[in-house]
């Protein structure tokens, strides 16, 4: 069961918003399809992200994928330990595997709750 306290994009990122700040990561579905994770590139603190646009890249064995931002705003924190501890992303993508925190100025109009995301996966998966 995915946590109900956050919203999801069709491209498998999630955003959990509290007091105007969104914590962002990728879903279990994304992690399971990436297979062995090897490298992660996150934006710098202070940089701007835009909803729907790539903010980072992740390499699994054999493929590099973009990570898309569910929100717009300024990056106020990144999970600095994550790139060298990608096992925590694989094992706990909704908590220890968070990627960035964003002071929100806007958000994607494509965000959906956990139930809608689950329905999306049923119709659009492999």
């Amino acid at each position, binding site marked *: 069961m995915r946590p109900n306290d956050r919203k999801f994009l069709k491209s498998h990122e999630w955003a959990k918003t509290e007091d105007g700040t969104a914590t962002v990561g990728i879903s*279990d579905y994304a992690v399971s399809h990436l*297979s062995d994770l*090897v490298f992660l590139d996150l934006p710098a603190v202070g940089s701007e992200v835009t909803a729907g646009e790539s903010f980072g890249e992740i390499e699994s064995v054999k493929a*590099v994928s*973009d990570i*898309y931002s569910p929100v717009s705003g300024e990056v106020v924190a990144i999970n600095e330990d994550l790139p060298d501890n990608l096992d925590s992303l694989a*094992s706990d993508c909704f908590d220890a595997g968070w990627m960035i925190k964003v002071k929100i100025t806007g958000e994607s109009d494509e965000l959906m709750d956990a139930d809608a995301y689950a329905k999306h*996966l049923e119709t*659009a998966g*492999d």
Partner: protein
Amino acid sequence: MPTPTPSTSRPPATEKLLRVVLDPPRSPALNMALDSALLEGGHPATLRIYSWSPYGLSIGRFQDPETFRAVPGRHQIVQRVTGGGAIYHAEEITFALTVDAARLPASIPDSYNVLHDAIAEALSAVGVQTTRVCCSPGSSPRPTEPWCFADPGPSDLVDPSGKKILGSAQRRIRRPQERILHHGSLVLHSPPQGPRCAAVADQVDPASARPTLTEGMVTAMASALGLAPTPAQLDPSELAAAQGRLEPAAR
């Protein structure tokens, strides 16, 4: 961790044709720019067969070019948008496939297997024997070798001696559409730089095999994708889009 919800179907792929572009030799920088442009530009499914003039050294997305400054020879160093290790591009058949993600299995390893099996079929037809590496139990996912051909991994094609003959890598985007770039280097002659790898020349004469091998790769990959191959050339706007991505000095 929650188990991903089982799914019953994928959105149907809408492409029916595979544009096959037998491209003239281009610079390393322009080759990489074209691969990116064809992935991101919403173009039709394309299989571009190309070569390198001058020779070049491409490195993976997360590699540091400084690692390779001391590699001897006059060549350009370019960074791929795909992952993996460094490749010295000399005498090889290079291919770049850009296609809707729905045309390939969602599983990354399975998508490699589909394409690599097609290439193995084409190689076998000209007398080059290969096998696909099944698995590498116990190996760390983070590569320990900087060169692509140094360390065969799961899904890689190797010759009877166990050396890698094909190096390939993927980039996957999900916006605005789910598309995949899968490009690779099939070695005709092992290049002088980098580790000794397997080559077509180890088993057959590359010059005489090349036309049949190229045609076989196109036919087998198109068949694996369920697309009809159609000879084509790059549209001038596609070339312009790629040239626009280059650093001013490289244009």
